[in-house]
């Protein structure tokens, strides 16, 4: 042992001991029982209905980017719920533990959470919301939408895609198990030096935090490589850079950030691990360590990460506003430029997260001005959305409402962000709940965009629309909750209330904290409305079926193929003629044209390697947390062996023959005909239309010879 460990260690179980199981904790023990009962129930139901084979074949071993995307989004939604429960706990503690006369239970002098437990709750809340909710949700959408929008059959690396998902799932499992085995870090989602050092955090919580974040960083980096390669190499014929849908541009900008910044996080965390496991002194206060080095390294990743999550959200809004304004996005080129500008500037602003560190005025001034530069492209985006609505024909359905909500929250977040960018203001509100309210405005912008996208793209993936009434009910409840929680929070910031207080010493803040508690109750209602939305939509799915163009006013390429999207995306890769291809085809009257003949296509095989690697990674993470060295060695060797085995085996893929394809296409077209929203004129005899699907550079195609446009594609 290179470091002294509190609580003993043995070669067999490492630091693991019965005392590490919080069976006497009045909150965790009942929760554990509930989780076990729930798990047994779910597993039992799967067995009862004999769905194991289906689950394994169709989901757990899949390399289909849409299914992987759906699983990413499922993980994201589950973790969003977990993070919300953490938020509920934080709000309840702060509404309860106010003033010296407030009561205390469960070992806390005030409220119901001890300071250490409270620290874990808000740290988990931050890690989960940013890295396990927002990130998987957005990566999930990029996974589903990007390949269809650029006319590809799958990602560039389908197996790598599955690997990214299962790493993310392993990280999620690791943070969830920290609830019941050991504890979690109390140092905030970004970690403080030197409080995460062994002297100040002797337990395993910080180790859970390190390995969860490392796994997520790994998964997201792999995902980033994949999405970049897909966008650069897999575009359909005619999909030039200037015709790329704006969400794809946003994904491109976002993943450039991911690919370049996540390694910085991995290095920073590896150095923390060196301090805690090897007794190094990278970030200790003494013996040559430099604790602000950690803060710099973390935010060199941390700030680009903020734009990694906001850029896809901007992309989503840029898709939704034009569809429901029934006209093209205003200022496509400036939108692209603005996305790239934000991605670039994201690297120049990290120091604004610690203006109060005591850097000199020249340093602070430089970062202050750089930070305000972000406001320029962001402001342009807001104006562009506004002018997309200008002279439009606006439909305020649920997706549009969520997108507009995102726009207004962005305005609030932008205003307060410009305040925080000025050091002279920042000194007064840094580390106060004002900052908390600011970044929640920004992150809720993302959440609003995500819910808009769930509603907007759901019919594309599943073939039926979500219930409008419940989607709108949820929107209004969620918005009321947002106002009730964050308006008082901004006010408390101006009152000087600092963040992360597990005990609130000033009773003057109590009324505002109670309003926020009420707000979180309203949020809870919106969560229930979301469950109702899912239930009602699935129940009535037969009457909500849609065809390819689910909204009737859709614009980009993903709306060309059937809904739900077949696993091969496009039977024949379409030829792209315009920026808003579907709108262009609709305007030229060839939106219903289908290919006249099919050719064999090549698809990747499913693989069980990815999920097994994910499982082994989880074991490795768990063994590292508890320092069970034999298990670390075993799982690491198994991972290496499996990777080598798979690289020798490779994947030859398989062929879907033209006949099979035709059959499946016919079935899909019959479905659309039955729905009656789309009138297909297959083989209607109009000369040229037969080949127009794959190659339709011109609306009048009579003189064009036949072409196999893009059929040489191989994944």
């Amino acid at each position: 042992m290179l470091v002294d460990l509190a609580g003993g260690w043995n070669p067999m179980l490492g630091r693991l001991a019965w005392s590490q199981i919080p069976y006497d904790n009045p909150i965790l023990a009942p929760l554990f029982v509930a989780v076990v009962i729930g798990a047994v129930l779910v597993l039992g139901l799967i067995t009862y209905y004999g769905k194991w084979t289906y689950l394994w074949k169709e989901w757990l071993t899949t390399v289909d980017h849409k299914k992987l995307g759906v699983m990413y989004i499922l993980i994201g939604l589950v973790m969003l719920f977990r993070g919300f429960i953490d938020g509920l706990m934080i709000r309840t503690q702060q509404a309860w533990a106010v003033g010296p006369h407030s009561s205390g239970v469960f070992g806390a002098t005030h409220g119901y959470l001890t300071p250490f437990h409270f620290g874990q709750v808000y740290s988990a809340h931050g890690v989960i919301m940013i890295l396990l909710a927002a990130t998987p949700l957005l990566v999930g959408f990029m996974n589903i939408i990007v390949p269809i929008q650029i006319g590809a059959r799958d990602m560039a690396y389908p197996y790598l895609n599955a690997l990214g998902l299962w790493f993310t799932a392993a990280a999620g499992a690791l943070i969830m198990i920290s609830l019941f085995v050991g504890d979690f870090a109390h140092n905030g989602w970004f970690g403080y030096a030197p409080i995460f050092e062994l002297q100040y955090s002797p337990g395993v919580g910080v180790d859970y935090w390190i390995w969860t974040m490392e796994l997520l960083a790994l998964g997201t980096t792999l995902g980033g490589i994949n999405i970049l390669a897909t966008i650069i190499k897999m575009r359909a014929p005619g999909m030039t850079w200037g015709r790329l849908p704006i969400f794809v541009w946003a994904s491109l900008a976002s993943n450039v950030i991911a690919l370049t910044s996540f390694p910085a996080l991995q290095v920073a965390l590896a150095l923390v691990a060196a301090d805690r496991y090897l007794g190094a002194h990278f970030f200790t206060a003494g013996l040559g360590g430099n604790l602000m080095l950690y803060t710099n390294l973390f935010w060199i990743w941390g700030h680009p990460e903020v734009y990694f999550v906001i850029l896809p959200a901007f992309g989503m809004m840029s898709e939704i506003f034009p569809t429901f304004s029934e006209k093209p996005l205003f200022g496509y080129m400036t939108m692209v430029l603005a996305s790239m500008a934000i991605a670039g500037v994201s690297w120049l602003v990290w120091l604004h997260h610690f203006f109060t560190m005591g850097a000199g005025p020249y340093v602070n001034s430089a970062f202050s001005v750089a930070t305000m530069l972000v406001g320029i492209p962001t402001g342009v985006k807001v104006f562009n959305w506004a002018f997309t609505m200008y002279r439009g024909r606006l439909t305020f359905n649920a997706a549009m409402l969520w997108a507009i909500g995102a726009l207004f929250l962005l305005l609030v977040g932008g205003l307060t962000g410009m305040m925080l960018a000025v050091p002279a203001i920042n000194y007064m509100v840094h580390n106060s709940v004002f900052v908390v309210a600011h970044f929640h405005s920004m992150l809720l912008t993302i959440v609003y965009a995500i819910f808009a996208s769930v509603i907007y793209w759901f019919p594309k993936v599943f073939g039926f629309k979500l219930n409008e009434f419940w989607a709108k009910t949820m929107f209004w409840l969620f918005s009321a909750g947002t106002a009730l929680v964050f308006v008082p929070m901004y006010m408390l910031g101006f009152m000087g209330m600092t963040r992360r207080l597990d005990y609130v010493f000033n009773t003057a803040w109590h009324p505002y904290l109670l309003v926020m508690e009420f707000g979180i109750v309203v949020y809870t209602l919106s969560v229930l409305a979301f469950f109702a939305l899912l239930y009602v939509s699935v129940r009535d799915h037969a009457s909500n079926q849609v065809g390819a163009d689910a909204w009737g006013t859709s614009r980009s390429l993903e709306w060309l193929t059937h809904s739900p999207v077949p696993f091969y995306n496009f039977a024949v890769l379409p030829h792209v003629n315009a920026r808003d291809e579907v709108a262009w085809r609709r305007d030229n009257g060839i939106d219903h044209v289908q290919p006249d003949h099919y050719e064999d296509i090549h698809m990747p095989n499913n693989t069980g390697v990815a999920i097994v690697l994910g499982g082994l990674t989880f074991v490795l993470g768990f063994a590292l947390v508890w320092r069970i060295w034999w298990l670390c060695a075993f799982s690491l060797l198994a991972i290496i062996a499996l990777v080598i085995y798979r690289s020798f085996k490779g994947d030859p893929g398989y062929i879907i023959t033209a006949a099979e394809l035709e059959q499946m296409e016919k079935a899909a077209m019959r479905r659309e005909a039955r729905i009656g929203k789309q009138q297909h004129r297959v083989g209607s005899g109009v000369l040229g239309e037969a080949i127009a699907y794959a190659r339709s550079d011109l609306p009048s195609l009579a003189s064009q010879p036949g072409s196999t446009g893009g059929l040489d594609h191989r994944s």
Partner: protein
Amino acid sequence: MQVKWRNNLKNGCRHAALAPILLLSGCAGTPFWIFDPKGLMADTNLFYLLVDVGIMGGIVGLTALLVIWFMWRYQKGKNRGKYDPTWSHSNTIEVVVWGIPIIAVGFLSYFAVTGTFEINPYNPTVITNHLKPVSDPVEVDVIATDWQWLFVYPQYHMAVANDLVLPAHTPVFFRLTSSAVTTTFFIPQLVGMIDVMPGMRTKNALESNHVGEYQGIASDYAGAGTSWMTFKTKIVKSADFREWVRKVQQSPTSMTYASFNDYADPYINVHHKVAYFSSVPDGLFDHVVDEVMKGKTWPIPPMMTENMVAYMQKQNAEHRD
């Protein structure tokens, strides 16, 4: 000239801008500490806040109104505005939408930079430019431990724990360090935040002309006792300050390097205990910085991380309370 313009803004517009909030809270002192500064530093912070919100609030407010107007005018089926399904570009609008943010950011950048220098914690020109020979600044060395504040007055060779008393109309210069983890020193109505870090020294300063009692906060998470790591800041008249110094100097307890070692052990100051130390060794501040740089730590007992009530019983049993 600028100063006069600024004073007008501060005294006139500020009251106008903040009137609704101040009225809400009545005359008994507003709970909005940031809007109610009582010192030169905090005053300057508020000035920049008002400038920034004035400019950005105008732009954001107008944009919001624009969006709402478009939403109303172009709603489908209402036929209020013209529908143009192909309109998606206008050079004029592009220039305007890039121009407005660029001009606003340029304008704000000027204020951001001047403000950064005016309240630069190491040399705040709002204070240092007006130093007079008679000012006779007070120096305070701040040492944060887990989880108490020790204020050393090197000029008077004395120290006070968890209570900061300062004379009015006098510049005060702080040096700050921590014996344990990183936290932040913050007195909302007097001076903005500055990080307090182990093995390092930061600085800050304040000057207040308002006699009164102001809340001081440890505004960065430092572990279990952070929420109780608060202190009162009392701005008193010069005569009262001299009286208070005499009182502290008559305290029976004194602090040595050895007793600091005990004092710095983790301690949750639930009862806001204040302690006076009639004497401290010269150079205690540098001594603490040196020790921490050499690797000295005051580790947190694992028990503290489990059960607050049980730990408090232990803390009481050790008669440290």
